[in-house]
């Protein structure tokens, strides 16, 4: 398992243009598979346009304690892109005035941003209905200074969404690194102890499942049933919902697909699983993604591809929700990952 990001390894996929070249070329340029644009044009959805803004997703930095093989952020301990307090101030302005009902903090490991707690405290004051932090679980056990995170989350009524690749140790550690499974189990138990994820508890704890390899996630409700049964029986762990998320062919997952000679088959599988009814609710139709340095994107994936919004408003310092919402969403072949099967978003299926 790699211990460095693509960026630190000087891998050519760390360059956004190179990724887009791959996604636009090969089997798509040769006409073997249709472009996403043409697929959605068939159902009158091109250009793809936003609906009402519901979710502000803020990426507070690419630093992470893990270096997961499938990571679309190319996050890791060596990434230095971290949101400053100044940019957070700009975000707070927006959070206080937005029409969105959900605030979603992500990373990297958002908790590693030195101003993370301050930002959460300030954001919580804005009274957003659903305040999500995407926590990778192991961070809670990574260092003493993080041990009290469950209590901190509880204090601010944070909705915790955590990644858990499988309910068995082998598969989890293979995707995310040795020891990740045991640490994640311990972290989940601690979240349960303070009340997170318990039946009828208001403290929401959801899990994110994404496949550990070149295949698509299975049926979300069947997976949820299997996860609940196994985690309860083996570790007495409770959680609320499981979101099954499709890996998009970006950054390290793209690198893995190419290196393992699975890229073409995977793209075939995504295109074959294309579900036109999922197009209507893809994440970018109700979300704005903000990067560590304040730029605005249609989604976290476009952020990683360096595709800033196609709007006159491109940075949080100029934020204007109405102007921003009147834009065309930038799409490419990675978007097939959002429309496969029951669809996929940061909140799981979309149909």
């Amino acid at each position: 398992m790699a211990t460095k990001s693509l960026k630190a390894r000087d891998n050519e996929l760390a360059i956004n243009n190179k990724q887009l070249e791959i996604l636009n070329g090969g089997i798509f340029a040769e006409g073997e598979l249709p472009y996403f644009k043409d697929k959605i044009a068939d159902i009158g959805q091109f250009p793809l346009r936003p609906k009402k803004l519901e979710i502000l997703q803020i990426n507070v930095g690419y630093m992470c304690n893990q270096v997961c093989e499938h990571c679309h952020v190319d996050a890791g301990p060596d990434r230095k892109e971290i949101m400053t307090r100044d940019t957070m101030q700009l975000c707070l302005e927006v959070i206080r005035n937005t029409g969105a009902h959900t605030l979603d903090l992500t990373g990297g490991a958002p908790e590693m941003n030195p101003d993370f707690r301050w930002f959460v405290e300030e954001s919580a004051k804005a009274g957003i209905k659903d305040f999500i932090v995407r926590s990778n679980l192991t961070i809670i056990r990574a260092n003493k200074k993080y041990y009290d995170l469950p209590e901190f989350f509880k204090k601010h009524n944070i909705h915790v969404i955590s990644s858990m690749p499988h309910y068995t140790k082998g598969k989890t550690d293979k995707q995310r690194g040795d020891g990740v499974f045991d640490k994640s189990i311990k972290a989940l138990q601690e979240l349960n102890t303070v009340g997170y994820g318990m039946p009828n508890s208001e403290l929401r704890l959801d899990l994110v499942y994404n496949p550990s390899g070149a295949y698509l996630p299975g049926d979300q409700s069947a997976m949820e049933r299997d996860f609940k049964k196994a985690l309860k029986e083996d570790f007495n762990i409770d959680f609320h919902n499981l979101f099954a998320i499709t890996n998009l062919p970006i950054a390290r997952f793209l690198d893995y697909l190419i290196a393992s000679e699975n890229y073409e088959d995977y793209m075939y599988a995504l295109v074959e699983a294309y579900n036109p009814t999922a197009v209507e609710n893809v994440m970018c139709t109700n979300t704005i993604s903000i990067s560590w340095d304040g730029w605005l994107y249609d989604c976290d994936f476009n952020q990683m591809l360096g595709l800033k919004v196609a709007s006159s408003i491109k940075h949080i310092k100029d934020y204007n929700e109405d102007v921003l919402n009147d834009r065309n969403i930038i799409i490419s072949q990675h978007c097939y990952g959002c429309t496969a099967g029951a669809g996929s978003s940061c909140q799981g299926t979309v149909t």
Partner: protein
Amino acid sequence: MANPYYDAADLRKFGKITEWSEELGTKFFEYYGKVFEEGALSAREKSLIALAVAHVVKCPYCIDAYTKDGLEKGITKEEMMEAVHAGAAIESGATLVHGVQMMNKYNKLSM
């Protein structure tokens, strides 16, 4: 030229069999799809049965397809291998049970 026997890329083209016999092809895929839906057996259980049968009929396409299907359904490699053994046990049992016929014949022909 692509290998004329068992080319992995041919699996992607399976659906094309419908082009040369629309009605039968369509009916087959409808039936096929229906069989693997959740029913009295879960889709997970059926996937493991399909994997075992795939080995018994020694179809490389089906083995690829149901290994991937198993991964998608969160089935572990231990479960998959046990399913293959279940298929193999029935297959070898089916061979060995014919040993009784051999014994019968032997006994009948011997003084």
